[in-house]
């Protein structure tokens, strides 16, 4: 049983450059990790006997909507710049402690590392994050859309500035 | 029998036609009734009522079904092999219909009293396999193909124990003529083959358990031959949609449907004639008691139909109770258990007969 602060110390000592810091989002505390280091950090977290984070509870992609908002003439809006985040909630079934990791990538080039080789269940979660907010996971075995149709080309629906197309395969989409 | 009688004053060809049509008078109403009966039996087993709105307690349900199926569009998929696709249901129905020719419904009526009656029925039922294979292949549908392959493998394997059991009976009575076989089991219940036939003395006591086992084996194998649960893997609904008839619609599907129910009765009829005394009453006849001799064949027909339908009902009962086997387990049951067991029974019975 370790607290987030203790685990942060362990990680900071080992990967000083790749760990950005702790963010407080009450009631949770988040450890921010650099995108290209998430694979090795998570491999360490699962292999270290004192930590042993064997269970990835949830992996969520989210649009932080922190760019500059520009209004379009047709009433819609668009975010320029800003970041997309991937949040990992992990726990250890042996030591019963939990941890939240976060990776933020710029919206223009949303590339991060896949953790499928560490936690097999990340496969579909990552596909969903790709499908919904458009984060690209390097080294993912099969990064294709999962919930939306494979030929969907109108963008990523859970981005805040997503605009629905008028037609899909001849079917009217809006009400 | 009936053929000889009619041809004596009408000539051979009309007689053949008429004699051939007579089973139809029985089969079509029977199949309609059996479908209705199955739905009612299953419904009452499941705390339901089953068809209620079409006629009195849904009695006209299957008639409505058939009339509707006649009206349906006849779809032949463009990728299907059309000639085979069209022949398959006819062939299947022919196979199960032709089997009725040699079945003795009563002492006065048997379509064709042939000496190799049992073998003829087993042989002609083989046409059903050809029909199913054709249907599965011609549909150009993967589910149909898998279903057809499964049913071919299943029917071919399960014919072996069936034939061995028949051979056992042959070694006891020395005839394969179903009419003679039925006549041998006359007069009382304990002359039925399931109770060791007309054999007497200690041999009979030894024979009774053997014959019970043989009866169970042939009942199981015939169940497998008509693709009923727990051996319904060729049309396993939860795996193969509806197996070999997935692509069939309208009247062609109705033919498969009728063939299935006709077949159910055909195999029950064989089991009845072989083991359960055929058309003979277990108690004796009212017609003989009150001296009206023409009543006897009618009573016999009643008993035959009663026994057949009772066996069909057991088939339904099994269907709505048991889960289904997997394809490899099905083969294990046949090759590892039923065939050795039936051989063993055959050997013992033959030895007993020699003694």
């Amino acid at each position, binding site marked *: 049983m370790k607290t987030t602060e203790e685990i942060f110390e362990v990680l900071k000592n080992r990967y000083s450059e790749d760990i950005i810091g702790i963010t407080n989002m009450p009631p949770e505390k988040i450890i921010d990790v650099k995108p290209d280091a998430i694979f090795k950090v998570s491999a360490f977290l699962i292999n270290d006997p004192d930590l042993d984070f064997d269970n990835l509870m949830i992996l969520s992609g989210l649009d932080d909507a922190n760019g500059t908002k520009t209004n379009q003439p047709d009433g819609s809006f668009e975010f320029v710049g800003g970041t997309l985040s991937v949040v990992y909630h992990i726990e250890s079934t042996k030591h019963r402690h939990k941890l939240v990791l976060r990776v933020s990538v710029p919206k223009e080039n949303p590339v991060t590392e896949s953790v499928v080789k560490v936690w097999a269940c990340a496969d579909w979660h990552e596909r969903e994050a790709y499908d919904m907010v458009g984060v690209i996971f390097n080294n993912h075995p099969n990064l294709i859309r999962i919930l939306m149709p494979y030929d969907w080309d109108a963008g990523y629906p859970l981005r805040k500035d997503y605009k629905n197309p008028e037609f899909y*395969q001849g079917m009217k989409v809006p009400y | 029998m009936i053929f000889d009688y009619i041809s004596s004053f009408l000539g051979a060809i009309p007689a053949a036609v008429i004699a051939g049509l007579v089973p139809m008078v029985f089969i079509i109403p029977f199949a309609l009734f059996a479908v209705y009966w199955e739905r009612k039996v299953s419904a009452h087993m499941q705390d339901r*009522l089953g068809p209620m709105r079409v006629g009195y307690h849904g009695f006209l*349900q299957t008639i409505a079904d058939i009339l509707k199926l006649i009206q349906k569009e006849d779809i032949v998929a463009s990728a299907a092999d059309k000639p085979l696709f069209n022949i398959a249901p006819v062939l299947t129905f022919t196979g199960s219909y032709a089997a009725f020719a040699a079945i003795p419904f009563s002492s006065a009526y048997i379509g064709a009293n042939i000496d190799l009656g049992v073998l003829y029925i087993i042989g002609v039922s083989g046409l059903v396999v050809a029909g199913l294979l054709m249907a599965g292949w011609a549909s150009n549908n993967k589910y149909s193909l898998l279903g057809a392959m499964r049913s071919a493998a299943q029917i071919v394997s399960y014919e072996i124990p069936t034939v061995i059991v028949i051979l056992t009976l042959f070694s006891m009575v020395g005839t394969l003529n179903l009419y003679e076989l039925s006549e041998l089991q006359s007069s009382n219940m304990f002359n039925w083959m399931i109770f060791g036939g007309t054999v007497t003395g200690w041999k009979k006591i030894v024979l009774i358990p053997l014959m019970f086992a043989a009866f169970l084996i042939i009942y199981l194998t015939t169940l497998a031959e008509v693709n009923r649960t727990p051996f319904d893997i060729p049309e396993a609904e939860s795996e193969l949609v509806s197996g070999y008839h997935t692509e069939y619609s309208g009247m062609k599907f109705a033919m498969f449907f009728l063939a299935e129910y006709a077949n159910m009765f055909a195999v029950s009829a064989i089991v009845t004639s072989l083991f359960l005394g055929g058309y003979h009453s277990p108690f004796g006849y009212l017609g003989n008691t009150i001296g009206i001799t023409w009543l006897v064949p009618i009573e016999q027909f009643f008993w035959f139909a009663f026994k057949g339908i009772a066996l069909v009902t057991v088939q339904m009962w099994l269907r709505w109770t048991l889960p289904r086997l997997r394809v490899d387990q099905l083969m294990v049951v046949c090759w590892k258990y039923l065939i050795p067991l039936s051989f063993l029974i055959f050997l013992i019975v033959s030895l007993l007969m020699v003694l």
Partner: protein
Amino acid sequence: MGILDKEFSQENIVITKFEDLMNWSRLSSLWQVGFGLACCAIEMMATSASHYDFDRFGVIPRPSPRQSDLIIISGTVTLKMALRIKRLYEQMPDPKYVISMGSCSNCGGPYWEHGYHVLKGVDRVVPVDVYVPGCPPRPEALLEGLLKLQEKIRNESLVKKVTA
């Protein structure tokens, strides 16, 4: 539709009686496609199960669309599924009927505004005979929908209706 579909220009007593028989057989034996989409499918299953018993009306589920007359669109139709439903409908032989069960398949239901992946009404891809409202409709409502469909079939005609 099957034989004698709208082949006559006038009604007569034979045709009317024949027509009644044909309509009766069609409405009494509506075999449904064993096909469920979403929440409403559970209520549809409950309707087929012991308590409500669809079989009383002669409705039994058939696994293959080739052998069925009725498709109950029971649940939300998504864009990904809509094309498959259309295909399924096309695979059914005529005469065929469609019951749209539940708000979602009637008009998009609660997903009408923000549902970027929900088809707002299955009638955008297949013609619908009876709409059953509710989210999800109770089994009684589905039975009512079936009775409405039977009423509709009862009034169908073989005769070509000439509009003046």
